[in-house]
C-alpha cells in the first residue's frame, strides 16, 4: 500500500491536527448518542419504579437464549472491527479487508437472529395489538408497556447497527480501491469507534431488558 499522506484539508495545519479533530468529533457525537439511548432507558427505569414485579415477570418472558448468542456475535464483530482498524493503520490492505468482511458478516448474523427473535416473539404472543397477545399472569397494560420499551430500544439499536453495516461496507469499498493511504487510516478508526459504540449500547440493553427478570431453564428455546 503506498504510504503517501492523506489529503490535507485547507483549514488544518498538520495531518495530526486533522486526525485528532476527526477522532474527537466522533467521540463527541457518541456522547450525544449516549443521551439518545439514555433518555429512553431513563423512561424505562422510571416506569419500572411503579411496576417492579410485573416488569420482572415480563422480562422473564423474553427469549434470553437468542439474546445471549447475539451478545457474543456482536462482541466477535467488535473484535473483528478492532483488528481491522489495527491492520489499516499497519497498511496491510488484505488483512483489513478480511477483518472488515468478518465484521460485516457477524453484524448481518446479529440482524438475522434479531429478526428471527421478533418472529418468535410474535409467535409466542408477545407482540401487543395482535390477536395472539397473551398477557399471562401480568396485567395486560403492564406487559404492553414493557414490550413497547423492548421494541423501541432494540429497534433503535437495530437501526444504528444497519447504519454501522453501511459504514463498514463503504469503508471496505474504499480500501478495496486502494483509496485508503496507510497514514490516512483515520476513516477506519472513526468507523471503528461508531461500531464499538453500537456494541456498547447492546451490552447495556441486555441487562436492562433481558436480564432484569428471572429466567428458567425452560426459557432456553428458539
Amino acid at each position, binding site marked *: 500500500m503506498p504510504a503517501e499522506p492523506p489529503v490535507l484539508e485547507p483549514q488544518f495545519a498538520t495531518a495530526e491536527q486533522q486526525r485528532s479533530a476527526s477522532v474527537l468529533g466522533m467521540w463527541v457525537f457518541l456522547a450525544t448518542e449516549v443521551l439518545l439511548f439514555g433518555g429512553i432507558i431513563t423512561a424505562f427505569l422510571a416506569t419500572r419504579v411503579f411496576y417492579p414485579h410485573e416488569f420482572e415477570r415480563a422480562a422473564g418472558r423474553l427469549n434470553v437464549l437468542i439474546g445471549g448468542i447475539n451478545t457474543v456475535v456482536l462482541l466477535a464483530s467488535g473484535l473483528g472491527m478492532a483488528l481491522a482498524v489495527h491492520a489499516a493503520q499497519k497498511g496491510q490492505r488484505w488483512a483489513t479487508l478480511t477483518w472488515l468482511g468478518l465484521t460485516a458478516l457477524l453484524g448481518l448474523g446479529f440482524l438475522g437472529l434479531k429478526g428471527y427473535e421478533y418472529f418468535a416473539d410474535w409467535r409466542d404472543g408477545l407482540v401487543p395489538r395482535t390477536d395472539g397477545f397473551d398477557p399471562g399472569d401480568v*396485567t395486560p397494560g403492564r406487559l404492553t408497556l414493557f414490550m413497547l420499551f423492548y421494541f423501541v430500544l432494540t429497534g433503535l439499536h437495530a437501526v444504528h447497527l444497519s447504519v454501522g453495516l453501511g459504514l463498514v461496507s463503504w469503508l471496505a469499498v474504499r480500501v478495496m480501491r486502494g483509496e485508503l493511504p496507510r497514514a490516512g487510516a483515520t476513516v477506519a478508526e472513526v468507523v471503528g469507534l461508531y461500531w464499538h459504540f453500537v456494541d456498547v449500547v447492546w451490552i447495556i440493553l441486555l441487562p436492562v431488558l433481558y436480564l432484569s427478570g428471572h429466567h428458567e431453564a425452560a426459557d432456553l428455546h428458539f
Partner: protein
Amino acid sequence: MDLFAAIGMPEVPLFPDQASAHAGRVDRLFFFILAVTGGMGASVGLLLAVFAFRYRRRTAADRTPRITGFPLLEWGWTLGPILPFAVMFAWGLAVYRDNYAPPPDAYEVFVVGKQWMWKVQHPGGQREINELHLPAGRPVKVTLISEDVIHDFGTPAFRKKVDVLPGRYVTVWYEPTAPGRYRLFCNQYCGTGHADMVGAIVVQRPDEHSKWLRDHAEGSAALEGRKLFLKLQCVSCHRTDGDAKAPVLEGLYGRRVLLRDGSTTEADAAYIRDSILYPAKQVAAPWEPVMPTFQGQVSEEEVLLLVAYVRSLGRGDLPRPNNDTPPPIGAPTELPNAGGAKK
C-alpha cells in the same frame, strides 16, 4: 377604585382578591421578592444611566483607564445573592408545604375534569357544572381526576392550582375566609375548549351554604353508589354469607389490607379505584384474583360514587342477595370475562 369610574373606564383590577389566609401568605412572599429584585434591578438600571451619562464619549482624545477586575467585588456579587435566594427558597417552601396537610375534618368535594367542563360532586349528592359552592371559614379538601387529558384546577383567589391528571387522584385544599364569587380557570392547555372551562368558586356564609345544600339535595353519592353496586352485580361476589368469593367491604375504607404478595396497603380511594379498574394489581390476601376488570364500563364519576358507597358501609350494611333483590333493569346478564383469571 373610583378613579376608574371617574374617568369613565371600566373597573380594571390590578391585584387579585384574597379569598383565603393562604392568599395573604403568598402575597407577602411575592412582595418580599418584589422588593429584593426591585432593589437589584433599580441599582443596575441606575448604574447604567449614571455611567451612560457621566462617561459618554465627549472628546476624541478620551483616555479610558485599564481596569481588568476587582476580585473582592467579583466574589462579593457571586456569593452575595446566595443569602436572599436562600430566604426566598425557604419562605416559598414553608408557605407551599401546607398544600400537603389538609385537616382531617375538611369538607370533602369530588371534581372530575373532562374536555371542557368541571363536574363537581358534593358528598351529599349535590352535583354542579363549572361551579363550586363552599362554606366560608371551614377547610375544604378537593379530590380531582381527569377523564381524558391533563387539566388544571386553577383558583387565583386562593393562590393555588393543581394539575388534574387522568388515571390518578390529586388533592388540593383551601380554607376560604371571604364570601364572594371568584374565578375558576383551567390552567393546563387541553384543546379547543380550553378557554371555555372557566367557572366560579362561590364562597357563602355557613348558613347560606347549608340552605343551598338543602335546596340542591338529590340522592347522596352513597345512595347512587349502592344502585351501581347492585346494577353491576358486585353484590354477587362481595356478600357476607357463606359462598362469598371476594372480600367483605364493610368498614373497609381506611383499614390496612394484607395483600397476596405479603405487603399491606391502606384501603383509600386510590386502592378502591385501582381494585375496580385494575383488579389483578393489588389482590387482598386470602382471595383468588378472579375479579373482572370494569375498565371502560364505568366512568370516573361512577367510580367515585362506588368509592363513596364503600366508604359509607358500616357493619351489616351490605344487602343480602336473595330473590327480593333481583338485579335491576339493564344489569349485565352474565359476568364480564374474568380478565384477571388465567384462561
